[in-house]
């Protein structure tokens, strides 16, 4: 059933602007990633196929596939430390609105070989194109902005939150694909969207969007819920635990 719905969605999404007759059918291996106390990351697979009908023209080149996974968006402030007097202090900052907290771009070969840089920018393909320059209140973008943006990208890449995997999409048959990625333990909680796009010879043929969520479960969920819904009791429980541990230790270690 879900497959069917996805296929319908894919067809609708694929229609306008894409005169060619390929459609993309895809699904994610799990619609929910549960965070339990031993969570250190999760493997996620996106699989699907390129559907062709009678109107599809024969293609000389193989299909290319790009899967973009994006985490919940938020406001990110990037600060720059400057040498003021003898100190290094936060002196300058830029804000990036609606910036994804997680980006993974999966493809079957390097993006530069799949689409031209101009087209990649237009379609927002690739990590760099998903974090856009943002101006101030009057929509001006100053000369120093690119340094802040590249610093943000560099920090997130080092954390493992932004990544490109140019060999993570595997063609099982010429039309059947499977993409896999390992989500890190620090992957933010919330709603993620997955966008799959099929390319041939540098142009986009079809595109489809899927989603999944990352949520706490088990004891993680109960603790977080208690902290949120019963703050006073939670505080008293924390105090109780502290006193119990402190007292136990003094009993255990008593040696008089």
């Amino acid at each position, binding site marked *: 059933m879900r497959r069917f719905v996805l296929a319908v969605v894919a067809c609708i999404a694929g229609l306008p602007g894409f005169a060619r007759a390929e459609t993309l059918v895809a699904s994610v291996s799990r619609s929910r990633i549960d965070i*339990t*106390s*031993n*969570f*250190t*990351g999760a493997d996620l697979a996106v699989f699907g196929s390129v559907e062709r009908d009678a109107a599809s023209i024969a293609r000389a080149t193989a299909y290319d596939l790009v899967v973009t996974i994006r985490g*919940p*968006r*938020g*406001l*990110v*402030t*990037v*600060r*720059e*430390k*400057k*040498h003021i007097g003898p*100190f*290094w*202090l936060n002196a300058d900052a830029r*804000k990036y609105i609606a910036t994804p*907290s997680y980006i993974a771009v999966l493809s079957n070969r390097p993006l530069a070989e799949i689409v031209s840089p101009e087209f990649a920018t237009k379609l927002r393909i690739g990590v760099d194109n998903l974090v856009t320059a943002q101006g101030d209140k009057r929509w001006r973008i100053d000369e120093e902005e690119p*340094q*802040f943006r590249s*610093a943000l990208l*560099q*920090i*997130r890449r080092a954390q493992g939150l932004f990544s490109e995997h140019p060999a993570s999409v595997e063609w099982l048959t010429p039309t059947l694909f499977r993409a896999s990625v390992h989500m890190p*333990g*620090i992957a933010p*909680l*919330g709603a993620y969207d997955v966008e799959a796009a099929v390319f041939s010879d540098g142009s986009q043929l079809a595109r489809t969007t899927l989603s999944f969520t990352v949520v*706490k479960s088990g*004891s*993680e*969920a109960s*603790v*977080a819920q208690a*902290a*949120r819904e019963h*703050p*006073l009791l*939670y*505080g*008293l*429980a*924390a*105090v109780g*635990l*502290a*006193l119990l*541990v*402190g*007292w136990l*230790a*003094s009993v255990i*270690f*008593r040696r*008089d």
Partner: protein
Amino acid sequence: MQIYLPIAEMPVDVFVVLGIGAVVGFISGMFGIGGGFLLTPALIFMGVPPAVVVATQAPQIAASSLTSTLAALRKNAVDVKLGVVLLLGGLIGTQFGVMFFNAMNRIGQLETIIAVSYVALLGTIGLLMLIESLRSTLATRRAPSAASKARSRWGGNLPLQMRFARSGLTVSVIPLGLLALAVGFIGAVLGIGGGFIMVPALIYLFRVPTLVVVGTSSLQILATMVAATILHAATDRSVDLFLAALLMVGSVFGAQFGARAGAHLRGEYFRLLLALLIFGVALRFGHDLVAKPDNPYSASVTETAR
């Protein structure tokens, strides 16, 4: 072995956290200080969000200071009366501190004020203690009884005199209350317990015996941290029970050994070690402030749509 923290929302290594707890607990048990000024940077370095660090430290410090207090009580090394006076003054100071904190936050200069005053405070106290203890260590070596007699304590001739039997101290409540007020104020602004100010002040300014200072300071920190835990849980909701439990287990064990090591230490060496510790931390923070950072840029998520 990794465990996922429910409030900090990140996995951490269990043994690393236990180890950090043990080291901080050892120092805290030895010197009667909470150890927040060591724990905060260690946890932030691990990537735990600062708000969670500050809130979660409170129950952890409560646990280890209860152990230290009980150990001190058994040795009759707690001046409960002195502890209560300090606590009352501290509560008022904390109130003013929170007001000042919010005012500075509105102006937008909080971070700089915290960084600079941290270094200035730790540096000054550490350096003064270092000079004094080096001098007295040398002096005791030359002439065993000459050093610490002649100096008078603060507030000897002010009104509202009160007798603190356990500390062997008769002193006016005014300077004691002012000290507690200042420590509470500074503690609230810097987000620390303030034991590293209280302990040297009681030793140097009021001449309270070292052993009693540790027990009394532990009692005062215990009360403050119990209140802080409930306040943090009720307001910012960033107390992480899993992280707190791990830190607690590590630190109560560490505190036991620390308290024992501290009890066998001679007064001069105790003061010298504490001075070196405080001065060392000041140097470390000062270095961060003046050295060229590896990456001048930093990114922080202000809000996330869930």
